[in-house]
C-alpha cells in the first residue's frame, strides 16, 4: 500500500480503497456483525457495524491514497513543511533549547501533583518501558543483535529483588545494583552460546532463552514459588520514612524519572564512544569489523551485558512497584512490546525510543474507552506508523566530529 499510492490515477485509488474496504468488511464480519445471543438462542446481525467498518475503512484508505499520491507528486524538500521548519529551527537555535527543556522539566516535575495517582502509576510504568527500550536499543539498535528474549533479564532483576528480600531481607537500594549486575551476568551467559549466530538464528535462540527463564520460574517451586509468585515485596524506602500509598507512588515516579535521565545519559555517552562505534560497525558488517581489529566476542558480550543491565535494574523497580510478581509478567509478549518500542522509535535513536515507549504504553491505557477494540486500534496505529514512517519515529542522527580547524570548510552536506 505504501509504495503503490504515488503513481496512481484517482480512479485506481478509488478502486484500491474499495477493495480494502471490502476486505476489512470480510475480516471483521465474524466479530463485528454476528453476535450469538445464547439466552434467547438467536443470532443477532449487526448490519450497522458492517456499514460503519466499510465506510470507515473506505474513506481512510482513500485519504491515505490521496495523501501518498500528493506526497509522491510534490517535489521533495523544496518547500519544507511547517513541522520541518520548526524542527530545523529548534536544532539550530540553542536559545530555544533552554525554555523548551525547562517547560518539559516543569511538566515532568508537577505531573504527580496535577494528575491522579492512577495516572502517575501509568506514567511510572511507561517510564519503566522507556528504560527497557533504551536497554534493548543497545543490543538491537546499535549492535544489531536481534534479541527476542529480552524480558528474561527483566525477570532476573525482579526475581533477584523478590527472592533476596524474601530470604535475606535485603532492601531495595541494596538489591538495585545487585539485580542489575545479575542481569548483566545473565546477559553474558546468554551471549556466549550465541556468539556465532546472526539474524534469524540469533532471534530463535534468544526467544528460547526467554522462555527457559520463564519456565524455570514457573516450575521450580522450591526456588521461585512457581506460578503463585511472590507477594508482599516492600516498596522502595527513603531513609526509613513512613509513606502513604500516594506518597510512595509519587516517590517511585520521581525515582523512575531519575533512572530514565541516568539511562539516557549513560546510553548516549556509550553510543558516542569508541565502544558505541564498534557496536555500530558490528551491526553494519561483522567480517569487516573483525578485519579492522575489533574483538567481536568482547564487543558482542559488552552489548548483551549492558543491555541486560538496564533490564535488571528496572526489573527490581518493577517488583518494588507492584509488590507482587509471578512468571506471567514476563511472557514473550513483553519482549515483543519492548522490541516494538525500539523499532517504532527508530533503531539506535534515543529520543525515538523515549517517544515510542510513551506512545506504546500510554496508548492502550487511554484507549480503554474503546474497550474491546483496544488491541485492534493499537495494531492499526502500528501498521499506519510503519506505512508512513518505516524508519521509525526519529531517525538516528549523523554524528559530526570537531575536525581540525584548517579544513573546517571542507565538508559537503
Amino acid at each position: 500500500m505504501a509504495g503503490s499510492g504515488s503513481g496512481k490515477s484517482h480512479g485506481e485509488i478509488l478502486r484500491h480503497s474499495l477493495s480494502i474496504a471490502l476486505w476489512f468488511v470480510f475480516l471483521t464480519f465474524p466479530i463485528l456483525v454476528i453476535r450469538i445471543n445464547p439466552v434467547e438462542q438467536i443470532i443477532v446481525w449487526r448490519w450497522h457495524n458492517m456499514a460503519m467498518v466499510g465506510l470507515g475503512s473506505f474513506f481512510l484508505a482513500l485519504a491515505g491514497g490521496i495523501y501518498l499520491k500528493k506526497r509522491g507528486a510534490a517535489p521533495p524538500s523544496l518547500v519544507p513543511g511547517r513541522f520541518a521548519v520548526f524542527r530545523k529551527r529548534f536544532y539550530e537555535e540553542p536559545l530555544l533549547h533552554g525554555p523548551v527543556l525547562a517547560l518539559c522539566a516543569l511538566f515532568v516535575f508537577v505531573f504527580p501533583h496535577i494528575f491522579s495517582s492512577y495516572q502517575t502509576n501509568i506514567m511510572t510504568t511507561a517510564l519503566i518501558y522507556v528504560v527497557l527500550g533504551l536497554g534493548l536499543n543497545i543490543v538491537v539498535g546499535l549492535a544489531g543483535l536481534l534479541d527476542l528474549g529480552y524480558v528474561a533479564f527483566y525477570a532476573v532483576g525482579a526475581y533477584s529483588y523478590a527472592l533476596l528480600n524474601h530470604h535475606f531481607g535485603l532492601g531495595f537500594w541494596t538489591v538495585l545494583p545487585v539485580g542489575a549486575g545479575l542481569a548483566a551476568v545473565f546477559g553474558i551467559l546468554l551471549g556466549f552460546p550465541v556468539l556465532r549466530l546472526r539474524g534469524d538464528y540469533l532471534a530463535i535462540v534468544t526467544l528460547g532463552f526467554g522462555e527457559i527463564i520463564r519456565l524455570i520460574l514457573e516450575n521450580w517451586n522450591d526456588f521461585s514459588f512457581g506460578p503463585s509468585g511472590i507477594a508482599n515485596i516492600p516498596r522502595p524506602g527513603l531513609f526509613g520514612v513512613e509513606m502513604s500509598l500516594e506518597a510512595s507512588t509519587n516517590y517511585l515516579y520521581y525515582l523512575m524519572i531519575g533512572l530514565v535521565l541516568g539511562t539516557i545519559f549513560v546510553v548516549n555517552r556509550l553510543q558516542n564512544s569508541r565502544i558505541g562505534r564498534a557496536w555500530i560497525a558490528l551491526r553494519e558488517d561483522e567480517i569487516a569489523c573483525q578485519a579492522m581489529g575489533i574483538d567481536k566476542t568482547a564487543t558482542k558480550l559488552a552489548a548483551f551485558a549492558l543491555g541486560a543491565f538496564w533490564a535488571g535494574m528496572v526489573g527490581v523497580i518493577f517488583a518494588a512497584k507492584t509488590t507482587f510478581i509471578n512468571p506471567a509478567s514476563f511472557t514473550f509478549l513483553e519482549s515483543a512490546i519492548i522490541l516494538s518500542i525500539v523499532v517504532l522509535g527508530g533503531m539506535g535513536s534515543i529520543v525515538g525510543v523515549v517517544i515510542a515507549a510513551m506512545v506504546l504504553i500510554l496508548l492502550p491505557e487511554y484507549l480503554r474507552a474503546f474497550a474491546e477494540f483496544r488491541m485492534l486500534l493499537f495494531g492499526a496505529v502500528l501498521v499506519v506508523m510503519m506505512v508512513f514512517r518505516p524508519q521509525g519515529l526519529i531517525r538516528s542522527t549523523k554524528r559530526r566530529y570537531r575536525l581540525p580547524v584548517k579544513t573546517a570548510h571542507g565538508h559537503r552536506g
Partner: protein
Amino acid sequence: MMAAVLEISGLTMDFGGLRALESLDFTVHSREIVALIGPNGAGKTTFFNCITGIYAPTGGDIHLVSPQRGRERINGLKPNRITEKGMARTFQNIRLFSNMTVLENVMIGRHCRSRVGILGAVFRNSATRAEEQEVVDSSFAILEKMGLAHFANDYARNLPYGAQRLLEIGRALATDPFLLLLDEPAAGMNPQETRELDERIVRIRDEEGVAILLIEHDMRLVMSLAERIVVMDSGRKLADGVPVEIRNNPEVIRAYLGDMDA
C-alpha cells in the same frame, strides 16, 4: 635484500574434499610492492582470507615479522588479533560500514590502537577526551592523505565507487599496519582512476613505509606497480619473479591463455 615481513611455508587449505590452496610458499619483504595474480578461481582471495584469519588454514605456517615484536606465528589467530599485529586488508567486494560516516569508518580502523573502555566512555574523563580527539585527528589526517577529506561527514554509502575503494584503503591504513593487503583495489575503476590509484599506492608505500601485497586483474596496473609478481593457478604457486620474467614465463602464459596444444 630487505628483511621479510611475511613468511609463508607449505600453506594448505582444504574445504571438505576440495583443496583450494596447496603447499604455498612465499615471502613478502619490508616496503615491497608484490602483486598476486592468477586466473579466476586460482585461490587468491582464499589465500588472503587464510592469512588474515578469516579462515583457519588446514596446514602450513604463516609468520609475521613485526619491526617491533619480531617473528610470530599467526596461524588460526582471530582476524582482529592479526590486524592488531600489523597486517591490514581491504575486500574485493567493498565492505564499508555504509551507515557510518566516512570519518567514522576510518575511526573504526583506529579502534585497535585506542583503549577507552566502558567506564571511560561513561565518565568521559580527560584521558577519554584526549584519546577521542587523537582518533578524530589521525583519522582525518588519513582522509586528507587519501584525498577524501571533503567527504568526511558524508555517509560511506553515498560515496562514488572509486572513493569507496580509497576509503577501504584508508580504513585499513588507520590500523597502523606494516603490511597492507589489497584485494583488487582497481576493480571497477576507470583508466583515469586506476592511474591515480597507481600513484597513490606508491606514495602510501613511500610515506608510511608499509609493504603492500595486492591481488589485481588489471595487468597494466600490475606491470607498472609491482616490483615482484607471484602467479597462482589452481591453488598452487606457478611463478614468482620480477614483472619481465613473469611476462615471458611460458607456464604463466599457458595458465592464462590455455594449453595451445590441446
